[in-house]
């Protein structure tokens, strides 16, 4: 029987696919918020089932920074720029999510046995989910041209890494988790500022239109 941890992990994969695939920015950002809420739930669940008390602190920090702060920044960005939905991505709206999920799952399935050997929490589905979410984030950069979707892709692979960290190294010193999160928040803020500049100069959020630097 599938346990709660696996259900939450599968829900995280599904939300990744939705964030990746949705054209509407606001809906994609809210779904990202939901995905991070699932991540926080996993932290809390693991903290009780595996007596990993540190994960309670992680959950609290992640809730304020990733469930609230980052989505608020992104929603404000979308409102400020007055954009609603993204332009056609590489391979089209239908094909690009299929490519992303199939390749991500394939990579996750081939790599996760190695992770299993050393993971503190020996659960295959959550480990597969962590690698899949990370890879969907990477594919988000490759296949989606929208600056905002690329910021969301960054946030997603960040979630993937955090899930891996919770499963494989939840006992690591808290300063490590704090350092990674601080970098992530500053990265999103800087990317948002650059996104505004991008929109100002190119009149669009489509990175394929930025072709000034070649050769």
């Amino acid at each position, binding site marked *: 029987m599938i346990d709660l941890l696996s259900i939450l992990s599968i829900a995280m994969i599904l939300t990744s696919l939705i964030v990746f695939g949705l054209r509407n920015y606001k809906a994609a950002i809210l779904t990202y918020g939901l995905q991070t809420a699932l991540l926080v739930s996993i932290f809390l669940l693991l903290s009780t089932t595996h007596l990993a008390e540190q994960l309670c602190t992680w959950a609290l920090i992640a809730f304020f920074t990733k469930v609230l702060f980052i989505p608020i920044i992104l929603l404000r960005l979308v409102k400020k720029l007055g954009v609603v939905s993204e332009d056609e991505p590489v391979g089209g709206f239908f094909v690009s999510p299929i490519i992303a999920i199939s390749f991500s799952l394939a990579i996750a399935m081939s790599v996760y046995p190695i992770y299993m050997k*050393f993971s503190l929490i020996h659960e295959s589905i959550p480990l597969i989910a962590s690698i899949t979410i990370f890879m969907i984030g990477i594919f988000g950069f490759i296949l989606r041209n929208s600056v905002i979707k690329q910021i969301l892709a*960054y946030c997603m692979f960040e979630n993937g890494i955090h899930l891996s960290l919770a499963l494989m*190294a939840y*006992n690591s*010193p808290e*300063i490590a988790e704090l350092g990674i999160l*601080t970098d992530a928040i500053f990265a999103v803020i800087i990317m948002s500022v650059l996104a505004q500049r991008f929109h100002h100069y190119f009149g669009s959020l489509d990175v394929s239109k930025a072709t*000034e630097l070649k050769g």
Partner: protein
Amino acid sequence: MDMQQLFILLLAVPLLASLIIWFAPTQFKLVSTLHVMASMVSSALAVITVMKVMNGKVFFAFHDMLFIDALGGVFLSLIGVTGLLINLYSVKYMQWEIQKGEITSKDAKLFFALSHLFVFTMTFSVLANNIVLMWVAIEATTLSSVFMVALHKGKKSTESGWKYIVICSIGLAFALYATVLLYSAGFAVIKDSHSMMLWTTLMAHAKEINPDILKLIFVFALIGYGTKAGLAPTHTWLPDVHSEGPAPASAMLSGILLKCAILGLIRYYAIVGNSMVGFEYVQTVMLISGLMTIFIAALFLMRQHDVKRMFAYHSIAHMGVIAFGLGVGGFVGLFAALFHALAHSVTKALAFCVTGNMVKIYGTRDMTKMGGLIRIAPITAILFCISICSLVGVPGFAIFVSEFWMIQESFNTALYLPVVLFIIGLIIIFIADFSHFFLATFGESKSKILSHEVEWSANLPLIGLAALIIIFGVFSVDGWVTLLNSAVKIIVAA
């Protein structure tokens, strides 16, 4: 002053300088004075620290999370010496930019504040013993330097800033995976969560860590830190970023930042090399990576007429040379790779700062529109000549020394095919560079001359860099050799 205080000062001075400049009134004279003073203090602290670890001593602080050894000392010396000279040059450069109306005094203040924040993050990355903190610091170097690169307003600057943060963040995500995996694999051996995150403990227990996972970890680390260091095929951000940023930012990125990323990689190289995997594996991977990087850079370099873009491809090529040195391995190969880090640091800092002079004189970066530099600005022309001579490996200049040792060691260890490919790559770079050099330096200028020789205050730091190139090319500097010997011993755990 005890080491604990020195650690605090090393990190606090640039961080505080950044904050003070950030909140200071927007008066160019005031912020530039603060900038110069802070740079001098940071540099003095770095040099004092390096002197303490020269003979192989190691110092720890903050529950061993920070440390300084001779290997870190090599890279701290780059931050201290190259960083100071670039920061001194940047004052005059920013003044020119303000006079041209390219930037405002507020932009210059932002640049100075960020440059100290950048120095803070780079110093942190060198001092970190905790492998997660090292990753955090290297990622923070990207974040702190984005707006130094994208200082100018406009399409090109924005595009370069975006490419920089996106490509480096993706690359470094793999390095974070390498970090998590290394910690987990280490924890399986020693059940101590604090100490298994420390590089020194991981090195001490390298032989007990599962060799299969270490191979995967090294590949992830190479993708991650290799992206940041500009190794092919994930080097694509580098030409755009180095060519579009202000000259001192490009000099800082190429001269110091790329080396800090290489230090991150060397830390993994040492762990995997000293494990049951052995040095043969890491050397083979680095040889392939180095040669691929040199050839890709050489081929693109031939087509460049933009002087900054040409130097940007040079940065890639020379990171390939450092990777080749790590690939050759052994005491001499590693010594040469570390020597090359310094040689390239001072050379490329000079090269990029000279482009600042050239753009002031011609108003363009296109070398086909230049010419007659030797008559218009003889000192700039000589400095340009010194940087080119060193970059292509002319004897008597710093880069020749490390490249010669790499070639010699390759023959000694029977790496005949790699060394032949290495030499071919260097010959391509040599030909491409000198044709570009003659284009800009001799003949008649093809564009209107906007200025003649720049002020002495701008040229003096560059003369300092040129002097270092020649000193390290001609003499054997005892202190530096001792430091490198100690650093190599750390890598091979001798």
